């Protein structure tokens, strides 16, 4: 009998890479169907305007154009895009989000009309020939201004531009805590708007088959099953069993491919209407104006404490800019995933959070890598540093004093409505990170350097986040109208090869590898014998997709459960074939053998063959060898860690140079360390992007000033340091392997670490805060202010 080392825990090279390295990945725009036509969308150049007239004649007359359509053409067959996650437990004002604007446009990028032509260049030419007359209206882009009396109003259905007012926590206890406080620190934060920037933009290819009356949509989607049900049940005139969605290779998403977009409905409608395949692929500039943005919260925060640094109470008031219409899950994200996480890694006895969701004349805002948790973590980590500064304490000591202690888990933040934090040992990650940077020596260096005019800063961020998003019962209370389990269907094929279909969906995370490691170990076979599939709704169990760092914790557990079900049957069939009782056999390394007589055995292939040919299946048992699981976990998982950033600030130019970046994360046991590190590195880079470089800016008319990659600073290789990674391992009691989730941790942790470092570098000059992105210009201006 061969013994193979378990694959789980090893840095196995990715199965998906050879195709991606040779140009054989099939992304949306790479799919070629005969006679494919191309769609181009005419978008509003105004932030807010009435549509006076639309003249499509010149466009329609261009040779190659097969159709030009406006809201009028669709009004009987395409309904508005629904919001699937209003804020839980409160009244939400959800004005319709039409796939083409009717009478009025509400942001630059709002779709007004579209063209279908036999060539993409012609489609764009024709789109520009559509003559739209507008009457411009006053616009409002800033959430704080949008709620002022007299502000331009976007929707009759949402008076005062308010989507909802939501609260969490205990107001009376919090008021009492503030009344008894020895020190109160107040702060205002604008957590700026970001543009997600997956390298692949979004798109849809629709094909209506007149023979089968089935519509197939290839969509850049993180959750094709959910998109299918939303489109069929709420938007399109296509019954669910006649609609198939396929997510092909996805070139990154970071949340932006979760949401329902107009082009999905427009291409589906046009393909059926015109009888040709219709493809739409965004240009990058379209992606900037019309694909959902992230963050954009304006926050007022107060922290009450004792003079010894003990935190007593936290008050948070946030205005969440939702953009022009309610996006698919936006109101739920800015409440549940933000407001219920504001206390971070700390035991704060009294908390009160208020969130107002606000409509403005800007692109819609929804979940972007971290989704609510970066905004929560940034505020609490900045507040800790401000408190330390106020009390002249070391920020390390303030963190240590207030950490939820290891013996307090499972820990539920008081009255906040969050699920219990599953497990943790926060001080250990802090200590390790401090050791890595040699903290006390660094502080001494800083002190020394300051005498010579050197501006060196050390920033710490100790985060905790909620991952493995589930269970259905909890998330439904937060407003989500669907389930939150994950499915896994495993089939051991007649020759013993294994095909596993997961309801989650890789868009760069490497599911084909990590999930194959799990399945291969369960059955004691090699990676090469396992195929992981996902992304096609045809014939696959309903699945929830990938976001919220949930694939492994929820989807991986589902896979393991299906494998266990199949293994019971393998034992039964194996025993039957070996003519012994099931108790007398064991399954190990891909074969069933009689206990104590390893020579007497049947291989997985022999058993699978018997199972499918129905030769040797015990009486009363069905043929076949497969199992499906819908795993709905009892709770979420809570990864944590400490990141430390060390910066040098150039006193003359304000330029920030990251000289060390140390991350000690605890995401539970890891299946593939190489992939986990990759997730962290990419996540940290995105978080640094927010701290130092990125920010979407609108002018007061609603025009996006950062409208292309020239104006919006996606970090480049030379902007970023080498990251030094380490981890501790605290298993979660919730998931199969104790894994917690890692997709968003880096992004959540790094932004405050960097901001704290830059502020720390300048703190001796009396500088208490800098607004993100902390550009050289902002630093330089702060340095010029008289103190």
């Amino acid at each position, binding site marked *: 009998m061969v013994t193979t080392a378990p694959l789980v825990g090893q840095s196995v*090279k*990715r199965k*998906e*890479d*050879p195709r*991606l*390295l*040779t*140009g*054989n*990945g*099939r*992304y949306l*725009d*790479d799919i*070629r169907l005969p006679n494919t036509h191309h769609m181009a969308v005419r978008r509003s150049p105004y932030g807010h305007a009435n549509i006076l007239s639309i003249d499509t004649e010149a466009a329609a007359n261009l040779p190659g154009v097969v159709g030009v359509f406006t809201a009028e053409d669709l009004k009987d067959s395409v309904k508005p895009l629904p919001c699937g996650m209003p804020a839980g437990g409160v009244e939400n004002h959800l004005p319709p989000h039409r796939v083409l604007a009717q009478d009025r446009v509400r942001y630059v990028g709002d779709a007004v009309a579209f063209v279908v032509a036999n060539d*993409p*260049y012609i489609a764009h030419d024709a789109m520009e020939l559509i003559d739209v007359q507008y009457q411009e209206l006053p616009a409002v882009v800033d959430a704080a201004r949008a709620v002022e009396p007299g502000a331009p109003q976007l929707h009759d259905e949402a008076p005062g531009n308010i989507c909802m007012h939501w609260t969490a926590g205990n107001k009376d206890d919090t008021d009492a805590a503030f009344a008894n406080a020895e020190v109160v620190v107040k702060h205002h934060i604008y957590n700026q708007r970001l543009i997600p*920037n*997956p*390298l*692949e*933009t979004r798109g849809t290819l629709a094909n209506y088959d007149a023979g089968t009356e089935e519509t197939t949509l290839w969509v850049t989607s993180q959750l094709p099953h959910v998109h299918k049900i939303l489109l069929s049940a709420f938007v399109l005139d296509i019954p669910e069993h006649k609609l198939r969605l396929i997510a092909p*290779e*996805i*070139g*990154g998403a*970071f949340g932006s491919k979760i949401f329902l977009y107009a082009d999905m409905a427009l291409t589906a409608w046009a393909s059926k209407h015109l009888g040709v395949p219709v493809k739409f692929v965004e*240009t*990058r*500039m379209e992606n900037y104006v019309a694909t959902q943005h992230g963050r954009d919260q304006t926050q007022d925060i107060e922290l009450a404490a004792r003079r010894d640094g003990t935190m007593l109470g936290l008050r948070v008031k946030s205005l969440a800019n939702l953009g022009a219409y309610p996006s698919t899950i936006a109101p739920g994200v800015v409440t549940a995933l933000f407001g219920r996480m504001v206390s971070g890694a700390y035991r704060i006895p009294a908390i009160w959070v208020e969130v107002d969701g606000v409509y403005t004349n800007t692109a819609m805002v929804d979940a972007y890598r971290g989704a609510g948790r970066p905004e929560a973590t940034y505020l609490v980590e900045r507040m800790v540093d401000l408190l330390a500064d106020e009390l002249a304490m070391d920020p390390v000591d303030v963190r240590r004093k207030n950490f939820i202690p290891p013996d307090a888990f499972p820990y539920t933040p008081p009255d906040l409505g969050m699920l219990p934090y599953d497990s943790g040992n926060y001080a250990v990650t802090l200590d390790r990170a401090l050791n890595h940077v040699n903290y006390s020596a660094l502080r001494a260096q800083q002190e020394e350097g300051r005498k010579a005019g050197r501006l060196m800063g050390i920033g710490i961020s100790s985060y905790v986040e909620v991952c493995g998003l589930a269970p259905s019962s909890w998330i439904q209370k937060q407003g989500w109208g669907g389930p939150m389990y994950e499915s896994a269907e495993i089939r051991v094929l007649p020759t013993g090869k294994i095909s596993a279909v997961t309801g989650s969906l890789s*868009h*760069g*995370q*490497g599911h084909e590898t990590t999930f194959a490691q799990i399945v291969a170990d369960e059955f004691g076979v090699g990676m090469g014998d396992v195929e992981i599939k996902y992304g096609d709704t045809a014939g696959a169990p309903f699945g929830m997709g990938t976001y919220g760092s949930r694939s492994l914790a929820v989807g991986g557990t589902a896979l393991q459960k299906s494998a266990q079900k199949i293994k019971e049957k393998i034992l039964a069939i194996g025993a039957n074939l070996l003519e012994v009782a099931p108790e007398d056999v064991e399954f190990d390394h891909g074969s069933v053998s009689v206990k104590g007589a390893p020579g007497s055995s049947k291989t997985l292939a022999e058993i699978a063959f018997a199972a499918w040919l129905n030769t040797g299946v015990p009486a009363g048992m069905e043929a076949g060898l497969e199992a499906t699981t819908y795993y709905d976990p009892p709770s979420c998982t809570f990864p944590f860690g400490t990141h430390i950033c060390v910066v040098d600030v150039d006193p003359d130019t304000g330029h920030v140079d990251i000289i060390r970046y140390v991350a000690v994360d605890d995401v539970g046991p890891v299946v593939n360390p*190489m*992939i986990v*590190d*990759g997730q962290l*590195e*990419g*996540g*940290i*880079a*995105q978080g640094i992007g927010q701290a130092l470089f990125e920010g979407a800016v609108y002018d007061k008319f609603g025009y996006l000033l950062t409208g*292309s*990659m*020239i104006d919006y600073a*996606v970090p*480049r*290789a*030379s902007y*970023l340091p*080498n*990251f030094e990674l380490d981890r501790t391992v605290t298993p979660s009691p919730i998931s199969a392997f104790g894994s917690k989730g890692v997709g968003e941790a*880096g992004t959540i942790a790094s932004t405050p670490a960097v901001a704290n470092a830059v502020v720390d570098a300048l703190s001796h000059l009396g500088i208490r805060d800098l607004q993100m992105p902390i550009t050289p210009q902002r630093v330089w201006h702060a340095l010029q202010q008289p103190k």
Partner: protein
Amino acid sequence: MTRIITLRVNGKSYENEVSPRLLLVHYLRDVLGLTGTHIACDTSQCGACTVMFNGESVKSCTMLAVQADGGEVKTVEGLATNGKLHPLQQGFWEKHGLQCGFCTPGMLMSSLNLLQRNPDPTPDEIRHALEGNLCRCTGYQNIVAAVQWAAQEMKAKPAAGVAE
């Protein structure tokens, strides 16, 4: 009005009638069906479309197909020889230099250009050379490691990295 262009792509000769405004990247993708070369921006910022043209890396979204007339193009599809991955491809695989893979073809071609000019680059030199290529997934650390891996490999086995 169309023009006839003749060029070699990955060692094969092509002659096509194209519109003068057709971008080289669209020619490669839509006329020749070589979809490994990607498009990720409209302002020459991202580098996803990078190919080798007459031995140097160019952004194929910033060149017209007619400008490539008579030239020699190499795309990611032409990087492996006889089914054997180029050391750069191998390096990206070994070092996990890709996640979603969308930036990867452009990264490979820009890295190839770098290693032709500088066979033993430092991490800083690699980061500088890849300034024109955006990756949103990896944070670049493993891309730097991948290029270093390939440089070592090509030094050890010089024949492995010859770009013909």
